[in-house]
C-alpha cells in the first residue's frame, strides 16, 4: 500500500484548493470530499500515481462519504494502482479496489480518462469473480392515482434474487416483503403504496431494504434506504353493496290456505251432492243407485284441490309491489353507478409521494 505523509497531503490539498482544480467554486464550499477527489484526479493526470492512490484511500475513510464519492475513489485507486506505465502497475492491489467497486456498481464502467485496455481487462475479471449488485434509487417519486408505483431498477454481476422489504421507522422483525424477483442480472422491483384503495403504508418514515442474493454461493448484499411516505387515505365515497332489504316491498301475497280448504271442500262436495240431490225422483224411487264413482272422485277432487293448492301456492305476485321494487332497484343501480364513477375519478385524482434517500451497502 502506498501512503503519503500528512504534510504532503496538506500540501496537495492546499494546492488543489488554491488553483481551483477541476471543480467550481460553489462545489468547493459544500463538498470537501469532492475537492479531495478532484485533487487526486489531478495527481493521477500528473502521473503521480502514489499521491492519487493515497488521496483515494483518505477519501474512502471519510465518514460522510456518499456513494458517488466512493465510486470515484475506488476508480481512482484502481487506476492509480494499474496505470499504463508498466513500472507503476500493482495488479493485485488494483484488483482489490476493483472488487470493492464491482460489489456496489456491478455494471458501471471506469471513467474514460482513468482507464485503458489493461485496466478494463482487470475490471472484467473483477466482475467475473465478484458478486456485486446495485439499485437505482428513484429519489422522490410522485404517486399519481391509486395505481402509482415506485420502481427500483436493480442489477447484478450474475443472476441473483432480489427482494424488497419495508419496515416502519423503529420497527424490528422481518419487515414486510413488498416484491421479489430473480434470479436475473437486470430487473425492476416495484412497490405499490396503495393497494385495494387503501395505503399499504400509512404516511410516515420507513426503512427499505433491497437484498440481493447470489443463488450459487448464498452471498447476500443489502442496500438500505430511508423513506418518507406521504400516502393519505384514498378519499372514496361509500358505495352500498345491495338494496336495503327493509325498503323492498313483499312481492307475493301470503298463500290462501283457507281458500284452498274451502275450494277443495266445495268441489268435492258438489260432485258427491250432484249425484244424489240432483237426480230424478223417479230413478231413486225405482231403486236405481246413484253414480257410485261420485264419492271417490269427489273425495279425490277435494283432496287434489286442497293438496295441490297447498303445495303449489307460493302466493300471488303483487304487481304494484313488483313495479315499486323494480323502480327501487333501478334507482339504486343508477345511484351506485354514479358513486362508482365518482370513486373512479377520486382514484385517478389521488396524489401521494415517496421520498427515498440511500444509505450504504
Amino acid at each position, binding site marked *: 500500500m502506498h501512503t503519503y505523509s500528512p504534510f504532503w497531503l496538506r500540501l496537495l490539498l492546499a494546492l488543489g484548493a488554491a488553483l481551483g482544480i477541476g471543480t467550481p467554486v460553489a462545489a468547493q464550499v459544500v463538498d470537501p470530499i469532492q475537492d479531495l477527489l478532484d485533487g487526486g484526479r489531478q495527481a493521477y493526470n500528473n502521473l503521480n500515481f502514489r499521491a492519487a492512490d493515497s488521496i483515494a484511500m483518505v477519501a474512502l475513510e471519510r465518514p460522510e462519504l456518499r456513494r458517488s464519492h466512493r465510486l470515484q475513489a475506488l476508480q481512482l485507486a484502481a487506476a492509480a494502482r494499474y496505470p499504463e506505465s508498466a513500472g507503476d502497475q500493482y495488479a493485485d492491489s488494483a484488483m482489490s479496489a476493483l472488487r470493492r467497486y464491482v460489489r456496489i456498481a456491478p455494471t458501471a464502467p471506469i471513467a474514460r480518462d482513468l482507464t485503458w485496455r489493461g485496466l478494463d481487462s482487470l475490471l472484467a475479471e473483477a466482475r467475473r469473480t465478484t458478486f456485486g449488485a446495485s439499485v437505482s434509487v428513484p429519489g422522490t417519486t410522485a404517486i399519481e392515482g391509486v395505481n402509482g408505483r415506485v420502481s427500483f431498477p436493480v442489477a447484478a454481476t450474475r443472476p441473483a434474487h432480489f427482494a424488497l422489504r419495508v419496515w416502519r421507522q423503529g420497527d424490528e422483525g422481518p419487515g414486510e416483503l413488498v416484491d421479489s424477483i430473480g434470479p436475473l442480472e437486470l430487473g425492476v422491483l416495484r412497490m405499490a403504496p396503495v393497494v385495494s384503495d387503501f395505503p399499504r403504508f400509512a404516511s410516515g418514515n420507513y426503512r427499505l431494504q433491497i437484498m440481493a442474493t447470489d443463488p450459487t454461493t448464498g452471498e447476500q448484499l443489502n442496500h438500505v434506504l430511508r423513506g418518507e411516505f406521504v400516502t393519505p387515505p384514498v378519499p372514496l365515497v361509500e358505495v352500498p353493496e345491495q338494496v336495503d332489504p327493509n325498503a323492498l*316491498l*313483499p312481492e*307475493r*301475497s*301470503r*298463500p*290462501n*290456505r*283457507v*281458500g*284452498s280448504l*274451502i*275450494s277443495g271442500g*266445495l*268441489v268435492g262436495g*258438489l*260432485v258427491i251432492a*250432484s*249425484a244424489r*240431490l*240432483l*237426480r*230424478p*225422483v*223417479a*230413478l231413486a224411487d*225405482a231403486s*236405481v243407485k246413484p*253414480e257410485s*264413482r*261420485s264419492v271417490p*272422485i*269427489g273425495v279425490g*277432487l277435494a283432496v*287434489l*284441490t286442497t293438496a*295441490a*293448492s297447498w*303445495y*303449489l*301456492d*307460493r*302466493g*300471488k*305476485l*303483487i*304487481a*304494484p*309491489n313488483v313495479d315499486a321494487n323494480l323502480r327501487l332497484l333501478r334507482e339504486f343501480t343508477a345511484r351506485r353507478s354514479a358513486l362508482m364513477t365518482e370513486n373512479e375519478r377520486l382514484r385517478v385524482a389521488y396524489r401521494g409521494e415517496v421520498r427515498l434517500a440511500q444509505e450504504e451497502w
Partner: protein
Amino acid sequence: MIRPALILALCAASAVTAFAQEPQSAPAEPRQPRGGEVRFGYLMQSLRRNSALEGSGTATGSGTIAGFEFLAQTDGLGVMARRSTGSTDGTGHGLEGDFISQEVRLMIGGRIFSVEGGVLERTGSHLNEETKVVVWRGGARSQWNLGGSGLVVKLGVGLLFSRLDTEGSAQFKGRGHDLDAMLLYQAPEGLPLYVLVGWHHERFDDLESTAPRWEEGSGPYLGIGVRLAPRLILR
C-alpha cells in the same frame, strides 16, 4: 228449480270466500287476475246414464265421449264451442248407440262470474233411427284462482230446455239442469298448457210426452290443451 239456484248461490259465495286474502304487509291489495282467457283443448269423459220410462221400468248405459272445446272470454263477453262424439252401451230406452254432441255458449260477465246462454244439439243413432235433440241452456259459471298455484276452480250450473226432433214423429218438450265442477292447472309462465279434471252431471225430464221419461248422466272428465291467460300477476 230451487236446488240449482241454491248451488248457484253457493258458487258465488264460495268464490267470494276464496278470493278473500289473508292479511299482508304489502300496501297493494291483491285481486283476482283480470284480462282474457283463450283455451283450446281435448276433452274426454267417462259417461254413465240412467233412464226411467213410465211403464217401461229403468235402463242404464255407459260409454265414453271425447272431443274438442274452444273458449274465449274477456272481462265482458265470452264464447265457448264444444264438439264431442262417442258411443254408449245400454239396456234399453235408446241409451245405447252412437251420438254426436255440439254446443255453443255465449257468456256475459267477467271470468270470475258470468251468466251464459247457449244451444246444444245431440244427434243419436239407435237401431237405424236418427234422433236429434236441441237443448237450450241458460246458466252461470264462476271460477277463481287458488292463490299463485296455477290452479283454477271452475263451477257451473245450467238449466236445460229442449225439443226432440225425430224423423217422422211428433215433437215434445223437456227440461233439466246440469252441473260442472272442474279443477284446472295452468302450467307456469311461459308454458301455455293446461290440464283439467272435472265432473259433469246432468238431468233431463220429459214430462210432457205420453210416456214421461227421466234421465240422468254423469261422470268424470279429463282435458288437456293450450291456454293463454294471466296466471299469477295481480293488477
